């Protein structure tokens, strides 16, 4: 392929920076990247042309201020292919917990002068504002996912994302189910694979940081959690956690909170 090197931008919104680290933590392969793409904007790494037109934009973070909204529209306009990285960019992140509460009250509880800070009442994913070409879930996404997507885009392919539950990854790793063998309330059955089933491999239940998988039977799992001894609030907290604003988990949380006995 004799084309010019594609241009890449990495944009950050409300986030912990953890998803960009998928690139910055690549180690030596990081130095290979400039052979493949022309990095025009990646503030944390140095290059800073936030308004440049690019082929691929990787976007980290949720949209939570009016300025964010303006900026993400700009990014969309400037990008041929926009990838939302991580649970913040796909679903609003942990900070979307604020959506369930009175954000103003929270602001005044923390800041003496909250009026100085201009924020939206909600924290949401990028696709709530602009068209997103690819969503990579995960809090954080892992390097392999990002590289695979880049690799595909560079060779002109649509990236593909495997849609499976964490359980399958877990079993492939040869880990014994922690829910069954330890009674851990594990979110693996309703969580999208991609992390490598880290939590069960570390002896604990999955806490759903990759967000919902394709078919989420939250009622059945919630029922099981209760049988393991969790009270209804504790069950709600499992769904209303890292990916609380993802539709399936949000619905589950709302329903559980609504009437814990109506099941």
């Amino acid at each position, binding site marked *: 392929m004799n084309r010019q090197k594609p241009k890449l931008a990495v944009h950050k919104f409300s986030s912990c920076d953890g998803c960009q680290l998928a690139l910055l933590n690549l180690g030596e392969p990081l130095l290979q990247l400039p052979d493949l793409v022309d990095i025009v904007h990646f503030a944390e790494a140095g290059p800073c042309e936030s308004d440049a037109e690019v082929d691929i934009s990787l976007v980290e973070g949720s949209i939570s201020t009016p300025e964010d909204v303006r900026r993400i529209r700009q990014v969309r306009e400037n990008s041929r292919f926009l990838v939302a990285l991580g649970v913040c960019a796909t679903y609003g992140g942990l900070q979307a917990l604020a959506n369930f509460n009175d954000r103003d009250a929270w602001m005044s509880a923390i800041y003496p002068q909250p009026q100085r800070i201009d924020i939206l009442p909600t924290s949401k994913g990028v696709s709530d504002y602009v068209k997103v070409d690819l969503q990579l879930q995960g809090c954080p996404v892992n390097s392999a996912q990002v590289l695979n997507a880049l690799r595909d885009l560079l060779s002109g392919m649509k990236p593909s994302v495997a*849609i499976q539950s964490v359980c*399958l990854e877990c079993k492939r790793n040869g880990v014994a189910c922690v829910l069954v063998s330890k*009674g851990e309330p594990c979110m693996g*059955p309703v969580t999208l694979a991609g992390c490598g089933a880290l939590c069960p491999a570390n002896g604990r239940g999955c806490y759903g940081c990759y967000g919902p998988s394709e078919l989420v039977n939250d009622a059945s799992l919630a029922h099981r959690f209760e049988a393991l001894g969790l009270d209804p609030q504790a069950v709600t907290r499992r769904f209303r956690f890292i990916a609380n604003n993802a539709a399936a988990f949000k619905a589950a949380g709302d329903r559980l909170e609504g009437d814990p006995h109506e099941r």
Partner: protein
Amino acid sequence: MARDGAIQFAEMTSVEQLSPGLTNEQQPGRYRLRQGDGDRLFDWNHGPQGVKPHCFSPREVLWSEQGEPLRFQPRLPAQAPIALVGVRACDLAALSIQDKHFLHADAPDPHYRQRREQLLLIGVDCAHSAETCFCVSTGDGPALDGGYDIGISELDEGFLLWPGSDKGQTITDRLALQPADDRQLESMLRISTQAAEEQQRSLPQPAELRRLYRRLEHSHWQDVADRCLACGNCTAVCPTCFCYDTGHEMSLDGENAQMVRQWDSCFSAGHSYMAGLLVRANVLQRYRQWLTHKLAGWQEQQGRTGCTGCGRCISWCPVGIDLTQEAAAILREGSVDV
């Protein structure tokens, strides 16, 4: 060996690593190891995996390729010989089903074969049945019935050992063994009869199970679908399930790639995906695919059901769905076949 709260095959360097008196408690959706005070080494039944991962690898590279010019290179596994100790009858039966699947004459799988050939199988008669076991009704246990290299039965006073293959024979020939006496043989029989009698579950007979295909519209499917998480654990722990997925992985510079295959499940979306369409879009359809295939489809494909009664899919289902009950319910209630 006991590892992370379950029996698992793991590399062993000394007999001390086996825990005398260890037993397992298995119920739908629940598995616990119990440390008893006996000194028997094989009083447990099994853990989440049978022999499957040792032949049909959960994830492996099938071949690698180079881009310019396009070249494909075989990548067969370099498998060192291993001995699996403590394999049960249900798993040996499952292994022979997988052998038939992966090694059938039209399309023998070289990767599977390579691993399979390196196995030495030391089978053990089950002395107890777990609550979830039903191998008696499938005719696959609890006593060993072929497929092993060396068979073992554990008596209070020691082990009965016998060769099951030429390979096994060369090993037993080299051991200083005492011939078993009648009383010992009797105990051996008694132990497995007792294990058989302990079983609480059973699967309907094959001919009956074929009728599942005539009950595709039964309302009970929805009942299961309401509970099933479509997580695929049942397929992953089942010693006969063989579905896999393939995909390419390219190097960062785009010059090389490899073809990787990994366990898939009929509960995942990709399993029935066709451009723009999911043939099985909901939990009901996926569970129905699993159960009908396992219990009816296999009969046509392999001459027997795909279930050897190990009960893993019951124990390791996070919500305790029990195929023996579901199958029975679908065959029983609402008597009309369609």
